[in-house]
């Protein structure tokens, strides 16, 4: 039974250029009805109570309004019990003092702030509708409200940016004295406005060499500032790794609630229908909201576990791997392991198989070797 619960709030006041998530403007929907449907879905889903981790993501959860969000979260907590780690994503555009205080009162104990950049021109380019000052303010409000586990999301390799811009963002993020930082290279997801302008030749991605340098810079700078690099894009102060996200990379079960949310339960990977209206309709008719349900074979599980574990800096714990998958990793990936060890892209230490430093910027070229048996 899943111990982790993810709840998707599919609303956002304005969509960012690069965002590939499913979200819609809240004013076009009967938000109450949608949130009620999510509560109904949660009610009939099974997971272990109290949930160990609870993660509210979006969209922008706060875009539905403080009152609606708080009312919703109270109902959620009634169902899940008090989670050890209870995260809510915050878009600075939708955050104010009140919001943070209220969240704290409901029992939220971790805040993940989608800051993205401390350079105004980059925020504007990305279509983020707030100022750099608003980020500072949001962090301050969160601390004042009593949060001591705050995460910041950052994006690098934004077209037009350069290494000193990126250093500037990193410096401010470190100064903000938060516990967790995720740093993503901007990706050009299919069917996003960003990807379309790029294909049309109107924007140009930063060149690979700079992208790599920026990545190496974040690794170096955050290490200096006392952050542990624990996943390809994630960094945490000691004791503050995101436990919810670790569920994914350790390939453990999780429950996803809401339109487009994904679950992994009992060897099934399930994805809910993304269309909000259809989702509500299904739930109201007491039907299952799954749009896709894929049975994961033992071999696929072996592949997925390897790929996901390798995203962690600590890599694959070979003993644990054997126990969990009941499969011999060398039997299926022996050739790939050997080859990548020789190329110094993988390393074997203390019965753990992990990416080397030089493999991290090109991790997919190694991970793909584990996507299916040799």
């Amino acid at each position, binding site marked *: 039974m899943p111990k982790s619960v*993810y709840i998707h709030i599919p609303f956002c006041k304005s969509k960012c250029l690069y965002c590939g998530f499913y979200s819609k403007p809240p004013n076009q929907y009967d938000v109450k009805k949608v949130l009620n449907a999510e509560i109904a879905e949660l009610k009939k889903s099974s997971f272990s109570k109290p949930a160990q981790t609870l993660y509210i993501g979006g969209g922008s959860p706060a875009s539905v309004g403080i009152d609606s969000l708080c009312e919703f979260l109270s109902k959620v907590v009634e169902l899940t019990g008090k989670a050890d780690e209870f995260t809510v994503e915050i878009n600075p555009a939708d955050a104010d003092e009140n919001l943070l205080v209220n969240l704290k009162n409901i029992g939220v104990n971790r805040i993940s702030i989608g800051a993205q950049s401390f350079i105004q021109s980059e925020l504007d380019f990305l279509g983020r509708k707030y100022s750099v000052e608003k980020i500072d303010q949001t962090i301050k409000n969160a601390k004042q409200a009593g949060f001591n586990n705050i995460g910041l999301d950052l994006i690098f390799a934004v077209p037009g940016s350069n290494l000193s811009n990126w250093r500037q963002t990193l410096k401010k993020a470190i100064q903000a004295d938060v516990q967790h930082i995720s740093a*993503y*290279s*901007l*990706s050009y997801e299919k069917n996003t406005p960003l990807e379309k302008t790029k294909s049309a030749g109107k924007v140009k991605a930063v060149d*690979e*060499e700079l*992208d*790599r340098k920026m*990545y190496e810079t974040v690794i170096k700078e955050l290490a200096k500032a006392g952050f542990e690099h624990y996943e*390809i*894009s994630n960094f945490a102060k000691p004791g503050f790794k995101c436990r919810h*996200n670790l*569920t*994914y*990379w350790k390939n453990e079960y*999780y429950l*996803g609630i809401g339109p*487009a*949310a*994904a*679950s*992994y339960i009992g060897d099934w*990977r399930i*994805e809910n229908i993304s269309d909000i209206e259809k989702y509500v309709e299904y739930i109201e008719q007491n039907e299952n909201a799954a749009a*896709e349900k*894929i049975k994961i074979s033992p071999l*696929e599980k072996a*592949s*997925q576990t390897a*790929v*996901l574990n390798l*995203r962690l800096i600590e890599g694959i714990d070979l003993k644990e791997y054997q126990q969990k998958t009941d499969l011999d990793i060398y039997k299926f990936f022996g050739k790939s392991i050997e080859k990548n060890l*020789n*190329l110094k*892209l993988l390393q074997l230490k203390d019965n753990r198989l992990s990416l080397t430093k030089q493999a*991290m*910027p*090109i*991790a*997919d*070229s190694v*991970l*793909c*070797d*584990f*996507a*299916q048996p*040799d």
Partner: protein
Amino acid sequence: MDIANIRNFCIIAHIDHGKSTLADRLLLLTGTVNQRDFKEQMLDTMDIERERGITVKASAVTMLYTLNGVEYMLNLIDTPGHVDFHYEVSRSMAACEGALLVVDASQGVEAQTVANAYLAVDSDLEIIPVINKIDLPAAQPKVVAEEIEHILGINKNECFHISAKSGQGILELLEAIITFLPPPVVDLTKQTKALIFDSHYDEYRGVICYVRLISGRLNPGDKILMMGSNRSYQVSELGKFTPGMKKIDSLGAGEVGYVIANIRTLSDITIGDTITLAKEPAKKALPGYKKPLQMVFSDFYPGNNTDYTHLRAAFEKLSLNDASFTFVPQNSPALGFGFRCGFLGLLHMEIIQERLERENDIEVVQTAPTVTYEVVETSGETYRIDSPSQLPEKTKIAELREPFVKLEIITPKDTIGNIMKLSEMKRCQLIRTDYISPTRVMMEFRAPLAEIVYDFYDQLKGISRGYATMDYEFIGFEVGDLVKIDILVNKAIVDALSLIVHRSIAEARGRKMLVKLRKAIPRHQFEIPLQAAIGGKIIARESIKAFRKDVTAKLYGGDVTRKMKVLKRQKEGKKRMKSIGSVQIPQQAFMSILDTSD
């Protein structure tokens, strides 16, 4: 059946002119196949034939038809039109007295029309000219009839005008087959002689020999002798293709059918061999056939995820059904163990490669095809090589000879200029030009096979708006000023990328090869230098930059399924590659060195 009531004929034509469709019509009209079981181009039974819409293997079928109260047995052989399968056509002809020469009414006489017509004349076949597709709006049956008369010397008034699609004119044609084509010549020697003109392999019954009985009779239980190999077998079943295999009690002189005699491997028989009875053998075997001549050679290596023994088993299985390709073990310093294979042409090669992979679930990496060269060493020793890597040291070579062909091109006259330009570039020498009609010509060249066997045809189509067609025939070896280009990948020579070319174009070609390779080899985790060398001297360099960033930034719960798919595809892409040192070279890279386009 009385031998006077038997007709044996084949259908020959340029590719796509409608042979198989005409065969369909005849099968339906004679009631050999009923509407319910019918499907289009029904004699094209192989998957590859149906998918590509072309005939690859000749098929024989027996039909019965009653005319004026007399029952006739009509044995038809549908032949392939593509130049690579000429050999199949000439084999089929030895089992026939007549040929239907089909010409597309909208396309006219084409290169293989001419080649096949001459083949039929050489085989002493009676020819019935058939103009097909007269239903097409662009049909010009009159013009085409003129062409047939002009170029082939066949009276234009003898042409039958048909549409194999609508069925128009088919009945008249069918009756002409009976009235116009001669019955088999009665061979009065009483000993049994049967020509093996084709064969295929059945997993359960072993080798099925397709035979044409020249004299005598065959019965089940007969002990037979293969006159060429001197092996003997016992006939377990005789039959006819209708078009499925149908058992019969006896095969008589003049008839066409199949023989099953517990022959376990195809290499135990030779196409063209003569079957006779062991107890009363014929005095002399039939003339038989020349061995097929492999025109192009290429190495096949197991892909990253296939092993050698598996590949060998696959080749053995395929060779049971196609005796016209060859394979011998080959060991390349760069690519390891594989096979050197010979094919009748590029289409034949493509088909073998596709069947190999598809029917056996394996992946092969194939090197660029090359022709055979003749080496004369300073010691006087002369031998042939079919791979640039077999070339001896420069100092040992007294002479290097390359194969030449007679090349025939039929094309609209306004494209002559373009064709002359192309042929000059390809070292072809014009021998003659004949007008086959006021608007079309036939050009004959002497051409080095190496220049025309790869992308010549595509280029020809390109410069003639698709109208030109070509045919070629091997004539002999000739001395050429040839050199070998070696390619170094990551500082090491990759023998499978070597190429023998004419000195006049060698440097330009070497540079082009590198440009093509740079595009074909994916970027790696490190930089890869590429070099081209002639006789040890580096003549060109390129390099493939390392990729610097290849990582998915976010991978959370909702991304797993999608991301796994993408990674799987990335891994599959690597499978069709060959590891040479730490460089992965994809299949296309080996082929890309032949690409001379810009």
